[in-house]
Each structure stands twice: as structure tokens, then as C-alpha cells.
């Protein structure tokens, strides 16, 4: 019939951090797995992210997201060791605990009250965090700027080298027998017997199962398998300085020093559609806040800046779904592809390999958006 068709047990649509992590997990469970990816010019959040493995602020409004994040963060150490053993690549995972610095008393109180509300939610699995006053922050970081009023510290937070993570996931996927098929934007997905026939720019792919992990592209793809993915792009901008000697022992939510010495400054959020341009206004505001946190950073040269598009849902939480109409079709999407990589490669891939998402994944279904608006 289709002599040229690619055949596999599972086709993962999207080769970013989410797709590669899930595909690697599937390939490690004995399934012949193919990643269908776009080309180099794809809107690829995986190349632009800030590389935190971050826990402390995740889950207000959905306790299950807090637990899922925590699970991934706890699994990250073993996950990084596995990647190193399989690929020789050290993704530089560190978990020294992370700080959110507040530049005013009001900002500190706001953060504190959000944390208290988050930890008081029903079903919340508690973990430690500390709210530090200025004196305590100064003891930890003698160079901290005069405007810093305090900080929130959580020992579970960490960071990685996310470009090396991206590469290691793909190398591990290939080492496990997975096939990476670039330049294959998906044009259509149809049921085909017990499986799926996927129309791509370079010919059909016949797959027993399909996993949609295409970031913003999931919004277009999901209806093809009876699902929905109400995601939109949210622009984030990042500034990177020249490499300098280690001076910052912990990641801050908007500022961190990489394993190779660069200082990354980030965490802006703008609604700008698919516009990936940077702007001096936002970059300037980010730099100004960074210098107020650590005045010494102001003497460093900026060597790079970029913008990338987060994959955002209305409530900011991930979507994991299994199609009722098209059994064997799954969807995964989130804006925390680094933090959740260990969960995606481990438990999520295991569930997809078993053919069903666990009952406790129900809160992540996009059906949560199918409620009538309040009058």
C-alpha cells in the first residue's frame, strides 16, 4: 500500500524538550518511536528558555501541578545521571535551592501571601520554604543590592544547562533506537485501522499511537484527534552577559549564573502573538532590576539577548490528555519543559506506553476549560 510510509509504534509530533523527553521515555520502553519535527526555523521554546528546574512558585490554583512539579524536581538528579551515562553529556543539573528576591516590602508580602495560599490548598503535599528578611538575605549574599527587601527560599529549586539537556535528550532517544525525522510539519492526522495515518510534508507516517507535543502547534493539531489545546504564545526575553568567575551560588527566579559563568537575566512576559523580536524597553527594565538585586552585575558586558515564545494555557498549567474519540492519541503541552523533563521522560511516558493516563492526571485535562463563563 504505502511502500514509502514510515511505520512505527508511536509517532511523537514535536521534537522540542517535551516531545524529545516523552519520545526518549517511550523508546526506552521497547516501543519503536519516531519524532516528527519541524525544521530549524520552528518557534522553538526549547532553545530560548531560562533553564530553571523550579518548584517554589508552581501550583497556586491546581495542587496537582504542585505535586507533579515536585515529583519531577525530585526525579531530576537520577534523570541527569541517566542522561550522562547514556550520552556522555553532563547537563549540569544543580539543586542548591533557589531564591526569589523581592525589591520592596510590598513585593515580599505579596509573594509570601501567594505561598501561604498555595500551601493551604486542599490536597497540597507540603514542602519547606522560608521567607527571609533583608538581614538574612545579606548573610547569604553580602553583595546584594540595597533595594532588596527580602526573599523566598525553597531548597527544592535548581537549574541545568538547557541546551545540553536538549541535545542529550535527542542523543539518548537515538541511542535507544528512536528515529528523528525533521522537516516534517504535520498536515493531517486520520484514523487508520487501529492506528493513525499522519500526513506530513515528506510523505505519510503510519503509527499505532500518536503523541502531540508540538507546543503552540498543538492548538492546530489537537482537533485532528478529537482533543483541544487552548494554548497561546507568551513572549519572554532573556539577556546574557559575558562569562565571569562564579559569584552566585544559587539560582534566582529572574537571574542565575550558568555552569559556564554567563549571567542570564530573564522572566519577562508579554502578549505579542508570534512576534519573537526583542525590545530595549523590556530588556532595559530587566537589566535595571538585575542591577538593583546585584549591583556588581552592572559592570558586565551583555553579549546576547533573545526572545522566545512560552506555550501558555489560560490558567498557566500544563495539558495532558488522552483522546476519547481517537484511542491511542495523546497530548502533552506545558511552559516548563525543563522542570518537567524528568516527569515527561519517566511517569508520563510510562502512562502513554500503557495506553492510558493515570486517574490522578485528570486535573490536567483540557476539559477543565469547558465550563460556561460566570454571568
Amino acid at each position: 500500500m504505502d511502500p514509502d510510509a514510515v511505520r512505527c509504534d508511536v509517532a511523537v509530533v514535536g521534537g522540542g524538550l517535551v516531545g524529545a523527553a516523552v519520545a526518549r521515555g517511550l523508546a526506552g520502553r521497547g516501543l519503536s518511536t519516531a519524532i516528527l519535527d519541524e525544521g530549524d526555523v520552528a518557534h522553538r521554546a526549547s532553545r530560548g528558555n531560562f533553564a530553571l528546574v523550579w518548584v517554589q512558585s508552581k501550583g497556586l490554583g491546581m495542587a496537582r501541578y504542585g505535586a507533579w512539579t515536585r515529583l519531577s524536581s525530585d526525579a531530576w538528579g537520577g534523570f541527569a545521571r541517566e542522561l550522562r551515562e547514556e550520552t556522555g553529556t553532563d547537563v549540569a543539573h544543580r539543586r542548591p535551592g533557589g531564591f526569589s528576591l523581592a525589591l520592596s516590602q510590598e513585593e515580599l508580602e505579596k509573594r509570601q501571601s501567594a505561598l501561604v495560599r498555595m500551601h493551604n490548598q486542599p490536597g497540597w503535599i507540603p514542602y519547606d520554604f522560608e521567607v527571609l528578611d533583608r538581614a538574612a538575605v545579606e548573610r547569604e549574599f553580602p553583595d546584594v543590592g540595597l533595594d532588596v527587601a527580602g526573599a523566598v527560599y525553597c531548597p527544592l529549586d535548581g537549574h541545568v544547562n538547557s541546551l545540553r539537556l536538549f541535545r542529550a535528550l535527542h542523543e539518548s532517544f537515538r541511542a535507544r533506537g528512536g528515529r528523528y525525522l525533521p522537516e516534517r510539519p504535520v498536515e493531517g492526522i486520520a484514523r487508520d485501522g487501529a492506528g493513525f495515518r499522519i500526513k506530513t510534508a515528506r510523505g505519510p507516517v503510519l503509527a499505532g499511537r500518536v503523541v502531540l507535543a508540538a507546543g503552540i502547534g498543538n492548538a492546530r493539531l489537537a482537533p485532528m484527534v478529537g482533543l483541544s489545546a487552548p494554548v497561546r504564545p507568551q513572549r519572554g526575553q532573556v539577556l546574557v552577559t559575558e562569562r565571569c568567575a562564579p559569584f552566585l551560588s544559587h539560582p534566582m527566579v529572574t537571574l542565575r549564573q550558568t555552569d559556564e559563568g554567563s549571567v542570564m537575566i530573564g522572566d519577562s512576559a508579554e502578549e505579542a502573538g508570534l512576534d519573537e523580536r526583542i525590545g530595549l524597553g523590556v530588556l532595559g527594565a530587566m537589566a535595571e532590576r538585575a542591577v538593583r538585586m546585584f549591583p556588581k552585575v552592572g559592570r558586565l558586558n551583555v553579549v546576547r539577548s533573545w526572545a522566545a515564545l512560552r506555550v501558555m494555557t489560560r490558567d498557566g498549567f500544563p495539558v495532558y490528555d488522552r483522546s476519547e474519540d481517537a484511542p491511542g492519541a495523546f497530548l502533552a503541552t506545558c511552559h516548563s519543559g525543563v522542570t518537567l523533563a524528568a516527569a515527561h521522560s519517566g511517569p508520563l511516558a510510562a502512562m502513554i506506553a500503557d495506553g492510558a493516563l493515570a486517574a490522578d492526571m485528570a486535573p490536567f485535562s483540557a476539559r477543565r476549560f469547558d465550563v460556561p463563563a460566570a454571568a
Partner: protein
Amino acid sequence: MFRRLPDAAAAARELPFTLDGEPVSGREGDTVAAALLALGRRAFRRTAVSGAERGPWCLMGVCHDCLVTIDGAGNAQSCLVPLRAGMAVETQRGRREVGR
């Protein structure tokens, strides 16, 4: 490796400066990089990641291999900075320190 042209050597005024704390001198019109090269220095710094030696390569502000610390500020492109009398120039070992 580098020698000054005889005419230039005779004409230009000498500018004293320090290199890693040692008193040395260059000539008016030198960039910091040119002065160091004329003093016989080839390695200006060690790289941030592997610690390998680096010296000027392009001498026109592009390659960033001639970085030195000038008057306490690290990662200065020595090929773009005119030499001034009294400068404190230091070769840089590895990464710049954030406060300097």
C-alpha cells in the same frame, strides 16, 4: 615576534604603564594590544572554560581574544583601547570577576 618599525620607534613619545604590576612602557599611538605585543607578550589571557592561552588575533575588535583587565575593569578589548600613561594593565586568568 613583533618588532617596531625603525621610524615609528624613534619618533613616538614613550608612555609608562604597568603590566601585572611591573613598570613597562609603550609608545604614543599604541593600542594596549600593540604595546603588549611590542613587549613580546603573546598570551594575554586564559580562556573562561578550558584555561587555554589566548592572544590578539584580529586586532580590529571582532575576535575578543585579546581581553585584558584595564584599571580594574575586566574583559577590556585591548586592541580597541589607546594606551595612556599610567594605565594598570593585567593579563586575565580565566573568567572575569563580576565586580571588576
